[in-house]
C-alpha cells in the first residue's frame, strides 16, 4: 500500500506540480490536499495521512511555534515543511523535515522516507522524560568517568547499546557533556563525589 501524503499548500500551481511529481513514484501518493489550515484537525481525522507536507506560510503567525498542537490527534505522523520563502530556523525546527521548492523527485522521496523512518523510531521509545533504570545506571558510570567500552563490559551489554542509552540520556536531559552529566548525577543524588 502506498504511503498517504496530505499536502497543505496554498498555491494551485505548486499543489498540482507536487501531486504530478509524486505520481511518478511508487511509494508515495498524495491522498488529499488542502489550501488552508481552517478546520484542519477535522480533515485529519477523515484523511488519516501517513505523512503531512505543510507550507509554513499557511500557519497563523501567532501559532508558528505551537502549530503542532493542531495535529495532536496524530502524534506519530511526521510533518514536513514545504518551503519557498525564508523561514526562521526557530520555526523550521518544529518540523520533522524540509522539502524545498527546487528539490527534485529523488530528493523529495528521500526526505519523506527519512522523516517516516525517524518517526517510527520515536514511537518505539514513547515520550517518557524520566530516565529508565538502565539509563540511570549508565549515567552514573559515565559521571564516574568510565568509557563506553568499560561500561559495556561492566554491564554485559554491547557498546552499541550503551551508545543508544547515552543518546536517550542526552535527549531526555538536554545535557551533552560528561561534565554536565556529572553535575546532573550529583544534583540528583545519584553519586556522592
Amino acid at each position: 500500500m502506498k504511503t498517504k501524503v496530505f499536502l497543505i499548500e496554498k498555491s494551485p500551481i505548486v499543489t498540482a506540480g507536487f501531486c504530478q511529481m509524486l505520481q511518478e513514484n511508487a511509494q508515495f501518493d498524495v491522498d488529499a490536499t488542502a489550501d488552508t489550515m481552517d478546520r484542519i484537525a477535522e480533515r485529519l481525522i477523515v484523511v488519516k495521512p501517513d505523512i503531512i507536507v505543510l507550507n509554513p506560510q499557511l500557519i497563523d503567525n501567532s501559532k508558528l511555534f505551537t502549530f503542532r498542537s493542531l495535529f495532536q490527534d496524530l502524534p506519530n505522523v511526521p510533518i514536513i515543511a514545504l518551503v519557498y520563502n525564508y523561514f526562521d530556523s526557530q520555526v523550521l525546527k518544529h518540523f520533522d523535515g524540509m522539502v524545498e521548492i527546487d528539490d527534485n523527485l529523488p530528493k523529495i522521496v528521500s526526505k519523506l522516507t527519512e522523516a517516516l523512518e525517524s518517526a517510527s523510531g520515536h514511537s518505539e521509545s514513547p515520550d517518557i522524560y524520566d530516565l529508565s533504570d538502565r539509563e540511570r545506571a549508565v549515567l552514573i558510570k559515565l559521571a564516574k568517568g568510565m568509557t563506553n567500552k568499560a561500561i559495556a563490559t561492566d554491564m554485559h551489554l554491547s557498546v552499541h547499546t550503551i551508545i543508544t542509552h547515552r543518546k536517550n540520556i542526552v535527549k531526555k536531559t538536554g545535557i551533552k557533556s560528561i561534565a554536565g552529566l556529572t553535575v546532573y548525577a550529583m544534583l540528583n543524588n545519584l553519586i556522592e563525589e
Partner: protein
Amino acid sequence: MFFTSKMKLSDVLISNHSLVLTLQRFKIELGFGEKTVAEVCRLNSIDPQFFLLICNVYSDSHYLPTEEEIAHTDMSGLLPYLIASHNYYLCERIPHIEQHLNRIADACKPNHKGILLRFFGEYKNEVQNHFLYEEKTVFPYIVSLCDNRKSEGYSINQFEENHSNIEDKLEDLTNILIKYLPGDIMPKERISLLFDLFQLSSDLNTHALIEDKILIPYVESLENKTAAQ
C-alpha cells in the same frame, strides 16, 4: 543585503538589538546622532562593506556572502574584530557569569557548590584554549598569508577540523539551572543569569557563523591566491 550603508546606524541597531554588541568590537562610540552607516564607518576608518557583512550574518543565520562579496571587501578589520570579540567574552561576559554563579553556588550544599564551580572552571578553560588556539596558531597563519608568505604544514582545513564546540557546556549549564538545581536556591539571581547565558550562547553562535561564513572562505581565497603564485 538587508542593511545598506545609507541607512541610519541607529535604525540598524534598533531593528536588530544584538548588533549593539558589535559597536565595541568596531570601536564605534555611541552618540552618533542621525549619521548613516557610511558616515560612522568613515569617521571610524571601517570599511562599510565589511561592517555590513557582519551585520547581515547577525541578522540572518542563513545569509552566506558570495565569493565576489568577500573578494571585494576590505578584510583588514576581520582579525581585530574577532580578537575584540574574544576579549569581550573572556574579560567581560564570562567573569560576569562567574560572579552570578559564585553567588548561586554559595547558597548550595557544599558538594553541589564544588561540582558547579568545577564545571564552570572547566568550561572557562575550554573557552580560553579555544580562543588561544585561534589567536596563536590560526590568526598568525592568516597574517602570513596576507604578507604573501606561505607557511608550510598548515591550512585552514585543519582549523575547520579542529574547531571545537564551545556552546555545548553553556547549554548544559542552562539546562541545569532551569531543571535540576533546587527551586528555592536564589531564584531571582538564577533568572538573571539565565538571560546572560541565553545572550552569550546566541552571540557565540553568531561568532561561529562569522568564522564559518566569512573567515574560512576568505582564508581559502587567500590560500588559492598564494598557491597560484
